[in-house]
């Protein structure tokens, strides 16, 4: 066992792991972005994925969600091996994601962005469009009511008929999160949901994430804001140089010299400088 391996503690997965990856590697033109990342994400918990810039966090989110294929390693969603599945198949298994830079469906209205989200819709079949119009109307009405309620919860109700491309940066973040919630995922990957938003909105987004947990979702979020991580996350996975450096509660990790050297020290010194 290498010294690095000794520092990787098993997360508290007493409730079971719902998402796991093992020895994930990925390189771009010979540069290793991921170099054997291995961890379990506990069910119905909020887990933070932290690490210095370039540690491979977003690459990992892309691989877990199927947007990118790994070079080697396996990923499991529940008991199903979803390694290198296409992203839409993984989404249909119940895993949703947001993007580091918000990606709204700009030509659609805010409400339509949410209405696209339900994974299986009768109205997406040509047969149903022409031969089962009542089913379509009923389903659409239910989806509209639910989407409108979610928009109201996320403070986007008044903007529901605006094109999504017209929203501000913070509103786009909220739209992306609410769109994911509309899909009722079992696992929700949030890639820096607090990045570039004002402190008041950070508080609100934190509250929404806690709501997700209450609703039974499992959240894995990439986040640099350690105050938020401290407040809302049950577990933390530290990624450095493409590998899992450690896992555990943030308070435990603060006592881990390797983590402090690789990431926390950097953050603390950066905040001191600022």
């Amino acid at each position, binding site marked *: 066992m290498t010294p690095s391996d000794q520092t990787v503690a098993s997360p508290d997965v007493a409730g079971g792991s719902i998402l796991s990856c093992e020895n994930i590697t990925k390189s771009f033109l010979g540069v290793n972005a991921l170099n054997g990342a291995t961890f379990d994400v506990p069910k119905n918990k909020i887990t933070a994925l932290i690490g210095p810039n370039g540690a491979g966090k977003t690459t990992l989110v892309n691989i877990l969600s199927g947007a990118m294929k790994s070079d080697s390693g396996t990923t499991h969603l529940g008991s199903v091996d979803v390694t290198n599945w*296409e992203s*839409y198949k993984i989404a249909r298994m119940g895993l949703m994601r947001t993007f580091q830079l918000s*990606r709204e469906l700009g030509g659609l*209205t805010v409400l339509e962005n949410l*209405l696209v989200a339900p994974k299986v819709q009768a109205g997406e079949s040509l047969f149903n469009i022409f031969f089962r119009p009542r089913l379509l109307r009923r389903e659409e009405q239910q989806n509209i009511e639910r989407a409108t309620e979610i928009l109201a919860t996320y403070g986007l109700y008044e903007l529901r008929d605006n094109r999504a491309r017209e929203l501000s940066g913070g509103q786009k973040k909220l739209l992306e999160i609410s769109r994911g919630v509309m899909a009722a995922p079992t696992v929700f990957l949030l890639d820096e949901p607090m990045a570039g938003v004002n402190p008041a909105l950070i508080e*609100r987004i934190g509250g*929404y994430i806690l709501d997700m947990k209450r609703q039974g979702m499992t959240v894995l979020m990439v986040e640099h804001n350690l105050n938020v991580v401290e*407040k809302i996350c049950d577990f933390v996975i530290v990624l450095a140089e493409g590998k899992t450096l450690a896992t555990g509660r943030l308070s435990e990790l603060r006592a881990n010299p390797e983590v402090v050297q690789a990431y926390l020290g950097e953050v*603390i010194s950066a905040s001191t400088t600022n």
Partner: protein
Amino acid sequence: MSAFWFYVFTLVFFFFDYFILAMGLNIQYGETGILNFAYIGFVAVGAYMTGVAGMPSAGLSGQHYILGLNLPFPINLIIGGLSASVLAFFIALITLRRLRTDYLAMVLISLSLVLYDISNNYIPLFNGADGLYNVPEPFANALKLTTNSFVPFFAAVTGVVALIMWYFMSRITRSPLGRTFRAIRDDPTVASALGKGVFRYQLTSMLIGSFYAGVGGGLIIQFGGSFNPTAWLPGETFVIFAVIIVGGVGNNIGMIVGALLVETLLIHLPALLPAIPGHPGLIENFDAMVIGILLMVMLWFRPQGMVPERIRRSRFTLPEFATSGASAAVMTSGPAITADEAPGAEPSLQAEQEDAQ
């Protein structure tokens, strides 16, 4: 019927026909984002197959073509539409899965050139550059229509076909399927992350659009009574692109405006004008010049087209938002991280945090 009315009904025919063609390209490009630069190839396939399905066996006619099923209108027209969809199915299988928009566009332009070369040179199948002629005029015998009376009659038939196809297209574009098409157009990566099998939906859009292309082509061959490969040059695709860009990408009403402005008024009306003395080729080249200028002007000053894509407004209102004050409150508030629910707020954890710092 005077020559004037003959021209007018010819223009009416092309207006309705290009409305159909524009709806087909619009669902592919305007709704789903597929840059189908081979669209005219599907129109040509529909035209050819409609023709040979409606013509009698080639026999001793001196022409070379397949089928010769002697089927009546509109069965031959439906065969033409379905044939274009079958071609689209195989092309989509090969191209859509692997290629991004820009590369897909290049491959489709190449495909359009290949289709043109094959139809222009392969005699056993397409009769080469001679094309097809003596294509039966629908109902001409049964209704004892003359050449003059056939033109307004078939313009009206095309109008009815266009209205039926508009109805079906509107049902599709207004449905959740149309919404998913537009989601894929806006960002296929996001659509995929939302569980939408992008290829499947793009394939569906290609099949629908190509059916419209085939029907539009089938109507043209029956209107003119002949099929000439030179009428289906790859550049013709850009005329249909001009129709939807000028009309308004993503809006079926815009297709009516585009078909009227571009195809009817700018392409066919000048072509019917007498030649200008001393400049015999000017009128023939007028359309290409005007379309080029019109496209530049539209893309610069009004990229959304004459009739922009409409905003689909919600008619559902939450009861608690009936008063304006309530909505303002929710706009600025929401759940926040409270001390008793946040794991980080546990006293022991806070103490450890302070120690670590």
